[in-house]
């Protein structure tokens, strides 16, 4: 099927123009409106010089306007780059420098961030600025168009010329050297997965689908394009709701969601606060999660409370587009230590567990997990070296992606995950290279030496990031000051939660930093903490100790 992502919108807008496509806070956007608004914005982008293959940066928080902007960029045959508006300017500067965007779209809430970016030396002077609401730039910064200008463009369809093999978006993930990696994803990469998912999950126009992750997460592309392809309703979650599990549950009830797709830390958080009632969310049909391992006790909690819902574990790194394998949990796991596999490949994908010689392992033998198939990204944006390191040739002569995950194939034919071969971790759904955090700490004046390790938080929230450092002077650098400094270059989710100032870094026999010992110290520090769950223990909350 020769379809591009924006074609799905055109088909639905033609079929059911009045049907709601997006719901966010108090606003509803119909398919007809979404189609017309994105046509207008696509023309505005073209008027700002955007041509086929150009990048359009989206400095927009989750909103109806951001979804309009996604479709507008695609209709203008451009590649959209969702930017994390919660990231510090220093990190976005590196991303913008790599992408060389022809246009950056902003709104009033991101105007301050935009002004900061424009003033940085990294900003390309030929990058144009467009506004999706009444926001404006600081005096002296020129804008290509305002929201009012956009309204003046014709709303009729555009002649897009891209074919499905063209890149649709670039998603940036943490890079171990401190430089984020831009994963290029094509239209065909996304349509392959969405087509499988809609047919497997039997999605219909009656579905009401959650839009929980932020737009720079690749899971969000399934929510958006899966919903639009099915002609269903996408209910975007206001980001601040996530923090309070009971309010999150209220949202699921009042929106009458039929599909909930999230990350394990959210499911864990809702269990911690016991926010789910017996037979809650009567409209809900399916619950999906992806991004990291869901603790089996949490899965059991959910399955016991929601017997009317199907539970599916999806697995796949950004580089292989949304998900490459799935496992529908057939029944509530009998015990808390029952292992949940990542399952079997989705249509068009293959999962391979190979040994060091790239030969298939025997069942139950641990090996490296590789993925081949239609979801494979063409590679990292303008980074042939890292692309060549991650995308190899399979024994059968196909392109394959080295996930960095350790896995085994069970006797049941299912794939089970065991851990990482490197220092990449998952924390609250975010993929983090500890090397990127360490590089950022080292760059701070006043730090002589630093090491970043991760420890388990006892199933509460996945892994917790810990930083041990040696100050350059005896007067020292407090953890509070260091943390504040780090927040200027790293997003919040990458900032260590636990700190330890040392006089000397512990070494192993080879003279290298003794990371396992550091992890042990941090674990001891946590468990030896004075914090005890007393009143909050009524809610079943386990205590977490922070230094």
């Amino acid at each position: 099927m020769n379809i591009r992502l924006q074609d799905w919108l055109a088909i639905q807008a033609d079929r059911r123009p009045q049907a709601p496509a997006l719901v966010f806070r108090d606003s509803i956007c119909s398919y007809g409106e979404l189609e017309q608004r994105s046509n207008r914005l696509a023309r505005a982008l073209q008027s700002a010089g955007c041509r086929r293959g150009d990048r359009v940066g989206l400095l927009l928080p989750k909103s109806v306007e951001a979804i309009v902007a996604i479709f507008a960029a695609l209709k203008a045959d451009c590649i959209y780059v969702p930017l994390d508006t919660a990231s510090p300017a220093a990190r976005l500067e590196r991303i913008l420098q790599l992408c060389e965007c022809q246009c950056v779209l902003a709104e009033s809430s991101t105007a301050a961030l935009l002004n900061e970016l424009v003033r940085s030396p990294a900003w390309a002077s030929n990058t144009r600025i467009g506004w999706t609401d009444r926001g404006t730039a600081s005096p002296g910064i020129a804008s290509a168009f305002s929201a009012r200008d956009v309204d003046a463009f014709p709303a009729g369809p555009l002649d897009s010329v891209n074919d499905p093999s063209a890149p649709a978006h670039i998603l940036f993930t943490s890079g171990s050297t401190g430089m984020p990696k831009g994963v290029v994803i094509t239209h065909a990469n996304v349509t392959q997965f969405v087509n499988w998912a809609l047919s497997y999950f039997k999605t219909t126009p009656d579905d009401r689908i959650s839009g929980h992750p932020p737009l720079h997460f690749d899971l969000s592309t399934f929510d958006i394009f899966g919903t639009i392809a099915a002609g269903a309703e996408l209910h975007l979650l206001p980001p601040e709701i996530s923090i309070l599990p009971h309010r999150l549950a209220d949202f699921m009830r009042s929106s009458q969601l039929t599909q909930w797709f999230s990350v394990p830390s959210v499911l864990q958080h809702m269990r911690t606060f016991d926010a789910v009632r017996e037979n809650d969310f009567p409209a809900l049909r399916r619950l999906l999660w992806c991004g990291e391992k869901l603790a089996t006790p949490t899965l059991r909690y959910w399955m016991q409370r929601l017997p009317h819902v199907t539970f599916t574990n999806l697995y796949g790194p950004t580089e292989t587009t949304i998900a490459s394998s799935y496992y529908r949990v057939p029944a509530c796991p009998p015990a808390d230590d029952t292992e949940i596999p990542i399952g079997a490949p989705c249509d068009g994908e293959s999962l391979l567990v190979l040994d060091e010689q790239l030969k298939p392992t025997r069942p139950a033998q641990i090996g490296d997990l590789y993925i081949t198939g239609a979801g494979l990204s063409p590679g990292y944006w303008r980074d042939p070296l890292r692309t060549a390191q991650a995308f190899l040739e399979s024994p059968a002569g196909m392109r394959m992606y080295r996930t960095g995950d350790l896995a085994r194939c069970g006797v049941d034919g299912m794939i089970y995950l065991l851990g990482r071969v490197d220092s990449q971790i998952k924390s609250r759904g975010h993929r983090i290279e500890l090397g990127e955090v360490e590089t950022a700490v080292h760059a701070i004046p006043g730090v002589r030496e630093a090491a970043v390790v991760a420890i388990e938080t006892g199933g509460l929230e996945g892994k917790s990031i810990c930083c041990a450092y040696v100050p350059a002077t005896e007067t020292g650098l407090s953890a509070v000051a260091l943390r504040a400094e780090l927040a200027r270059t790293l997003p919040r989710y990458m900032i260590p939660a636990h700190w330890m100032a040392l006089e000397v870094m512990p070494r192993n026999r080879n003279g290298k930093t003794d990371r396992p010992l550091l992890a042990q110290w941090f674990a001891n520090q946590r468990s030896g903490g004075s914090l005890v769950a007393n009143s909050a223990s009524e809610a079943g909350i386990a205590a977490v100790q922070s230094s």
Partner: protein
Amino acid sequence: MTTPMDRPPEEPAAGLTTQIGQLIQDRLGVRANSVDDDLIASGVLDSLTLVQLLLDIETCFGITIPLDELEIDDIRSISRLSRLVTRRKLAYAAA
């Protein structure tokens, strides 16, 4: 990136806001610029740190916070958290 909040109608006791500010600094390693800083928008409070902070507040002030009654606006800033603590203390005294 912090957004100053509207000043709440009733001014919480300065001692209480200082104590809560100190708790946030000691336990979460973040120093808030003002009692009206938006702790959620600035990312100081997320799902992990919220659990931690609520526990700390309960322990420190000897109160319980009914989680299912908690609203986003109750926890948005140090001054709002102070009002929450004051309210819970009163509820305790009345019980």
